[in-house]
């Protein structure tokens, strides 16, 4: 008994499974968020810089869609996307059912971070590449992405940390993982011990992710 809490009642097997589920959701959704968000971010950057009026129109539309997705609270997005998840992966609950809303929720956020870090790339370097006859694709692959690498890694770190809290929220609608445990035991059954352990594990996870991200950013920073 510590502070009147009895940790012997905690089912550690269940805690372990919960942690594993959280990591699965996190890993999968992070990969798909990057696969979806990176190209969107690049397109936002390229269209946003264009001088051609109809391309500027495309930018406005895409930017608007991204803003809408970002302004819907995640918990509502999860519920709204239940039919979508069923269509995509055949279920709307558990680890698998949570991945589509996680990706849809985080990708627009990540895309904006990508756009911002690409904008930080020195214009002069891009011009130098243009002057050397580089095509737009070559500028993206050989100039923008390598030059923005520290910023992109920082963006990925922020996105993954955000995804941790999203996975926890998805526990509200049967998402599974540590968030699910915290809600089921702590909120619905008043078993504070499981909730506290879940929260501690989430805090540790976020700390580790942030530390790893910071290290990577430092490693690739050349300025």
């Amino acid at each position: 008994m510590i502070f009147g809490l009895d940790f012997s009642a905690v089912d550690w097997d269940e805690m372990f499974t919960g942690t594993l589920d959280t990591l699965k959701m996190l890993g999968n959704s992070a990969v798909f968020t990057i696969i979806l968000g990176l190209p969107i971010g690049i397109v936002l950057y390229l269209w946003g810089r264009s001088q051609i009026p109809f391309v500027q129109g495309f930018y406005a539309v895409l930017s608007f869609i991204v803003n809408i997705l970002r302004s819907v609270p995640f918990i509502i997005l999860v519920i709204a996307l239940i039919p979508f998840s069923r269509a995509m992966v055949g279920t709307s609950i558990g680890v698998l059912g949570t991945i589509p809303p996680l990706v849809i929720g985080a990708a627009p956020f990540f895309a904006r971070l990508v756009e911002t870090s690409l904008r930080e790339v020195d214009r002069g370097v891009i011009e130098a590449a243009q002057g050397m006859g580089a095509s737009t694709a070559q500028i993206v692959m050989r100039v923008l992405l390598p030059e923005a690498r520290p910023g992109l890694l920082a963006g990925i770190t922020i996105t993954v940390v955000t995804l941790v809290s999203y996975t926890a929220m998805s526990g509200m609608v049967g998402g599974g993982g540590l968030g699910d445990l915290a809600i089921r035991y702590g909120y619905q059954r008043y078993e504070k011990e499981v909730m506290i352990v879940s929260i501690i594990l989430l805090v540790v996870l976020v700390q580790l992710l942030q530390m790893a991200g910071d290290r990577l950013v430092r490693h690739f920073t050349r300025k």
Partner: protein
Amino acid sequence: MIELKGLTKVYGKGGSAATALSGVNLNIEKGEIFGVIGHSGAGKSTLIRCINLLERPTKGEVWVDGTELTRLGKSQLQEHRRKIGMIFQHFNLLSSATVYDNIAFPLRLTHTPKAAVDRKVNELLALVGLTEHRGKYPAQLSGGQKQRVGIARALASDPDVLLCDEATSALDPQTTDSILRLLLDINKQFNLTIVLITHEMLVIQSICDRVAVIHGGGIVEQGRVTDVFLKPKHEVTKEFIRSEAQDDSPLLAALHAPHPTGATAVKITFLGEKTYESTLSRVAGGTGVNFAILQGTISTIKDTPYGQLIVRFEGDAKAIGRTISELAAQGLDVEVLS
């Protein structure tokens, strides 16, 4: 080699439109170093960026090596740009790539085989003297070293033309000097046409063959550097040359001071071999006039020696007259000041 015809660039539209260039015509020969000098805002940066169409002119034609660039489509333009190297005031190197990778960059754009890239980059590293720094990142280099990387990178695709956009403006005088010498070297070694823009007369004087003075979006004076430098016509040109010299108010006082025996002040310009000959003392000795040197410069423009002296001849008017015509007959340029 490079021909600009009626080049006009207007930024913005309607009431807020600003004209950066208005109807510039320029003809740059193969193998020469052509300088464009002007104050900031005169349009020189726009001018050089129009040559490889980093800036699209509003009107006019850009011809490089017999091709009208202003008429080309996107991919053809990319092709032609490979033959035009460019270096920048702020170097514009990839901060995420090493010296080696920066120089290899243009070669990799064209999918050059690895062995050929390696050979070329090593050659260029040796040329610009950075072989030991090949694995460093730009942030670890000095300004001069960064510009050397920029030059090597610009030369990697064997260009016919090198554009230098204020390439030495961010460097200290010694480094500027070494970069200019390197540019002169590669100009001679590869018969590379170089176009440079600057606001420093010293840069023009050190390496350029011809110069154009740009002011208010137009070329106000152009010609061989020796001609423009020694006989400037436009007020802006004179200003650039004056800023090299010191304050000349004491000289003006000396020029206008009354003289007991009668005197005439003249400006004598020597060019080439004559600079180092004893013409002045020989002629003055012959006609029996004395002279005082009030101000003078003996220096070189690129490889041409020149001298410009302001001299006061003292003696009777006839003898002074004979001295002046004799000097002119010897091939010196004499301008009577007072």
